């Protein structure tokens, strides 16, 4: 198999992860307004972003983002840029982990203290994020192979439930004739931003090519539509806004007649626990690589110095995460929305930077 599949896994991971917290909530809040047109717009924009970014970064085979930027930009510009981007990845992981701690406490283990839960997640993630890039990718592939059947099962089971209210879904479809809005588009494009991790993984995937962009478009659209419509089928057009973790409540509403556990919630929780931890690992691996890249010296650093650099970067991320634990439900949500915008702006900015670097390289070659 070629290396392109890793691009697809990265995309799929983000795409499935969007169900977790902010994306469905933002989309469902706009269900009587422009959510559905926003999903369509986001599918087009997301696929364009993904294709353009991958095409551009494939022009620099085997190079990380820092190597690429160094070809065209002065050092003084690169340092703040790298810090900015690594904080973006740090926040991406942080939000996932905070949401998941909250979900764990609410749905599965209300008696456990939040600090114990977050510490155990952080220890696991930090150990995994220290692996080298290829191992992280292999691990991600494995984990996806384990949980993908579970998620597909949950979704199929959700749709075949005779109590699923298709009328509510159709009623929402009649609300689709509204102009798209920025907030929903920003939320929905999150589903496509898995490719963004390529800024680091491009180093280990030199043979990546942009092929079959329609697969990403179709898959992304399907996931977004499911994200949006399934909770409506379970909680109705109006009742749906009352649920905080819409998808976990949906999973709680699905009953499995003949299985070891009766509640779909636990199957779903297991799948999403794995998925979010893998995703945080990938995000923080990227963030850590970006941050430690700044301290690279010409000659190969000793293994010991590398270890300390890695650990201090990850400790910094963990520290920030623990500092953000004080946020309540609504503050966390607002923070998430700000992140959704920031991430989108960051993607656009990164694509522009890459384009500039490519233009510089092109001119040099032809000069």
């Amino acid at each position: 198999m070629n290396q392109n599949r890793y691009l697809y896994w990265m995309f799929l991971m983000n795409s499935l992860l969007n169900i977790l917290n902010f994306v469905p909530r933002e989309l469902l809040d706009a269900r009587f307004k422009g959510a559905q047109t926003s999903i369509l717009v986001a599918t087009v924009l997301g696929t364009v972003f993904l294709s353009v970014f991958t095409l551009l970064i494939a022009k620099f085979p085997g190079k990380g983002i820092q190597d690429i930027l160094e070809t065209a930009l002065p050092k003084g510009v690169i340092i703040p840029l790298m810090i900015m981007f690594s904080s973006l990845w740090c926040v991406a992981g942080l939000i996932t982990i905070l949401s998941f701690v909250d979900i764990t406490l609410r749905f599965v283990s209300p008696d456990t203290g939040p600090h114990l839960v977050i510490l155990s997640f952080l220890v696991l993630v930090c150990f995994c994020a220290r692996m080298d890039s290829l191992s992280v990718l292999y691990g991600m592939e494995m984990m996806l192979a384990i949980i993908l059947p579970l998620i597909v099962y949950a979704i199929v089971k959700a749709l075949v439930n005779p109590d699923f209210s298709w009328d509510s879904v159709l009623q929402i479809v009649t609300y689709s004739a509204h102009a798209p809005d920025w907030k929903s588009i920003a939320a929905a494009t999150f589903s496509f931003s898995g490719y963004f991790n390529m800024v680091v993984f491009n180093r280990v995937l030199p043979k990546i090519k942009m092929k079959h962009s329609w697969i990403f478009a179709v898959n992304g659209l399907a996931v977004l539509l499911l994200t949006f419509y399934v909770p409506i089928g379970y909680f109705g057009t109006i009742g749906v806004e009352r649920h905080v973790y819409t998808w976990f409540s949906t999973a709680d509403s699905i009953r499995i007649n003949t299985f070891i556990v009766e509640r779909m919630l636990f199957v779903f929780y297991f799948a999403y626990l794995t998925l979010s931890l893998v995703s945080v690992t990938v995000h923080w691996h990227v963030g850590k690589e970006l941050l430690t890249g700044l301290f690279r010296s010409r000659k190969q650093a000793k293994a010991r110095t590398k270890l300390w650099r890695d650990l201090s970067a990850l400790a910094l991320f963990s520290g920030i995460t623990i500092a953000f634990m004080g946020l309540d439900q609504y503050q966390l949500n607002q923070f998430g929305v700000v992140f959704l915008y920031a991430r989108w702006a960051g993607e656009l900015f990164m694509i522009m930077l890459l384009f500039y670097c490519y233009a510089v390289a092109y001119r040099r070659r032809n000069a």
Partner: protein
Amino acid sequence: MRKLLLYAGIVLLCLTTGCEYKDIDRRIFVVAIGIDPGEEKAFKVSLKLAVPQGEVTKIDEKMLIVTEESDSISEALRLMKSKVEKELDYVHCKSIVIGEELAVGDIRHILDWAVRRRDIQLILNFAIGRPAGLDVLKVKPPSERIPSNSLIMAMSGEGTESPFIASVYSYKLMRDMYEQGKDPILPIIEAEGETRFQIDKIALLDEHKIQLVLNPEETRLFNLLTRPNLKTNFPAKVDESEFQYYTESSTSNYKITTASTGAPVIRYKIKIKGIVEENSTQELITHPLLEKISEAGGEELKQSVEALLEKIKDKRLDPFGWGLRYGTRHWNNETEARDWEALYPDLKFEVTAAVRVKYSGLIK
């Protein structure tokens, strides 16, 4: 370095206390909750508790009912914590029975509590208890081996598949309660003494309280209209002989047609394939007679369904979600709800019941 980390890890492991998890013999499981109006306070909350037992083969049903009155449900539950020595665990609670007296008032408070609490499932059966929730909890059929299991089996359709039982999970109740153009329903469980219950009626609610109670006959028709492949029998009368046919498969659907002139019509189409189950005379069933049975059965069904629909319409209720269906077919979202309100009083029903009795059973 590595070894140091390893030792530190082992020491830390010893400190973990198993996620503050209480062992199973320190827990007692709540299997059903009954909520009635209190004599002095607003609520009288009763919990049916199952005592965990070790060996499956020697299970002897052990259960306990505790009751407490308070002005809020959570307060009542907290007070009950001091009535039992073990930790109350709600994750296995499968039914909430609301006393009828309370359900003619407002049940939204209870629903809000049940959905908001994180350790109570969303797939929990809501029902109305007659004469009161506590009486239903007290019922202990002799055929039951695990506390409250009979209620769970009956409601889930895993045991008996009665055509008179409609089960309503809390997520569904909440959906229909808030949905515009659909009204919720609740099954009624009647306690008959200490050993039997009867679930054969459903209550139709408006936004939050009981408006109409359907009798068993109507309940069965209601179930026929709301779910596919209802397993039941229907009567057919040809000349002087009474037949009963069993439904092997049944489907029903409806369309709302609003012509520009004239009243809006809801057209129900019911299709049933059946088999003769009972014949009151000694007559041999021939092919022409089989066709007559089908025809007579269809006609009888049509009339009873129309009567049910008219009865529901007279109360201005909408348990089938006609209003919602109207909304799905119209794109004028601002005005469609008002349009429907205006159309509702003029509704006409047309029911076509295509009953096809295909077999006469094992004998002619």
